[in-house]
């Protein structure tokens, strides 16, 4: 895992406290992350805003694969250096 992955994983781990890093990486959808709920998803979006300065709306990410999908989303916008 490189620095970019670590930075993003820190956001996920903070927002989804019941999930391990492996759980987060393996999840195909947000609702597959153990213990996830809508509040945690809102926390993740707020953390991404704080850490990367990106305002993501919920519908934009709901269908993404959580970790890799968000990573690609940030990479495409040049926000994950």
């Amino acid at each position, binding site marked *: 895992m490189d620095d970019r992955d670590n930075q993003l994983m*820190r*956001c996920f*781990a*903070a*927002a989804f*406290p019941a999930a391990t890093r492996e759980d987060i990486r393996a999840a195909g959808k947000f609702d597959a992350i153990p213990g996830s709920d809508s*509040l945690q998803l*809102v*926390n993740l979006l*707020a*953390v991404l*805003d*704080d*850490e990367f300065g990106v*305002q993501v*709306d919920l519908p934009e990410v709901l269908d993404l694969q959580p970790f890799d999908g968000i990573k690609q989303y940030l990479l495409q916008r040049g926000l994950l250096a």
Partner: protein
Amino acid sequence: MTLIDALERLKQPVAENGRPRKIFLACGFTPLHLETFLAAHLRNRYPERGVEVTTGLFGDLTGNLERLRPEDYDALAVAIEWPDLDSRLGLRTLGGWQVDKLPDIVNSANYVLERLTRALQRISSALPVCICLPTLPLPPLFLTAPQRSSVFELTLRRNLAAFAETLSMSRQISVVSGQHLDEQSPLSRRFDLRTEIKQGFPYTTSHASVMGELLAGLIGRREPKKGLITDLDDTLWAGILGEAGVEGIHWHLEQHAQLHGIYQQFLASLASAGILLAATSKNDATLVQQAFEREDLLLSGTSLFPIEAHWAPKSESVGRILKTWNILAESVVFVDDSPMEVAEVQRAFPDLECLVFPKDDYPAFLRMLGLLRNRFAKDEISEEDSFRLQSIRNSGAFREHPQGVSLDDFLQKAEGRLTFAAGKPAGDARVLELLNKTNQFNLNGRRYDDAAWSKFLNDARAHLVTVSYEDKFGKLGRIAALIARPDANRLVVESWVMSCRAFSRRIEFHCLQYLLEKFAVDELSFELKATGRNGPLIEFLRPLVDGSFEENPGLSRFSFLGKTPKMPHRVQEVSIDG
């Protein structure tokens, strides 16, 4: 603290499995990140205890407060925003901003403030409450230009100020300082319209963090420092006394020395609130004495005790001052303009908070005053605060009682008078100060925050006894407090603290005798716990108790009578109604 820091803080395990602190967060918006930040900041303040934050229904601040059962919580935090007073003052509802609606908006806001006042006064009789008045900008509903205050806006703000003033008169209610909030979170960086509309959460995360920190700071207040040691040359005054002479030192505007005058004025304010002040200066003692005779000083020389003026290292002076005051370095701040002197003292006393006096840096000077005010902040001034320094001067007579005179004789001739007061005085800051700040003569280090104190006051089985002392050398005021609970034929002492100024006078024996007589029991049981600092209490109790000293030691009336020395003081009793 950023949101990711707060979330990570809340993931960390709690050190002890004690009962978590239960906080009700009342707000009309979705609590979301404010709840997270409040919980995280409270965890920082209470690392040994978990925190449970409960919130109410969305959009019903007043109803949430009217329904709240104070007995279910340890504290209440309230974040009021304009839409809580009238939803038309927000941007999530579309109730109309026509001219003819504006008076009704103001009236309905006032009606809600009256309901809030009643609800908060009810809750605050049993629970500590902290309140933050609206922090977000009003929406552009008034017809005046943005740079001009509308009469409706001014009326709203006047009613809000009156609401806050009424509530802040209650000791149990704290209102967040608007000025302090402005400094921490600029108005233009508080409101997030996007999250307000999409999630019902109106704060930027940075503003939510500041709000969480301020509310947590009012719920979990830190104990204030007790004393300040100041340098003299280029600190208390401008100039070097040994070079410029008594008339050559300054602290006035005309001599470009205003910062030193402000500092003197500030220290005089601390002294008037019972904060101990002392001075240490590498100087000629006679010259220093002459300098303090100048009548234009804003800080009287008698407010400083002791004054250490000589050429020895300042760390030695600080050591002697701490010994005279009999308080720990961690409770004291040291201020000196010389970074070298500050470093020397800091090396000797790592727990002492040491500050360099910023004599040429105006913003840093103002920051220093703000920091000092924070360190020495007090909500109330007690009678004891007014004569604390004098009683420390007087206690020298006890430490140095004449050689060849027995302690019995000396105490007898001191003409000591002890007053025991049984009862629970409501809103007595001194008793809480004694319980929460005393380290050395302290049964177990138990502290009482506002919530614990409220619970104690409402517990009919728990008794409070306070002890005052005076003798021919002067008044010490209230110097001891005991909390005890009868249990069949014994009395369980849950807390016992005594000010270090009252040591060596056998007051502690009088306390035990009073408990045995007052509660007519045959045994005292002590909820003793070694704290690492309460050596004097342990040394006193160890030879007295019966059997094991390890767990809740006991003392029978019979043992006490056999081990008690001569009781030197006259005793009287008063009762207090809450």
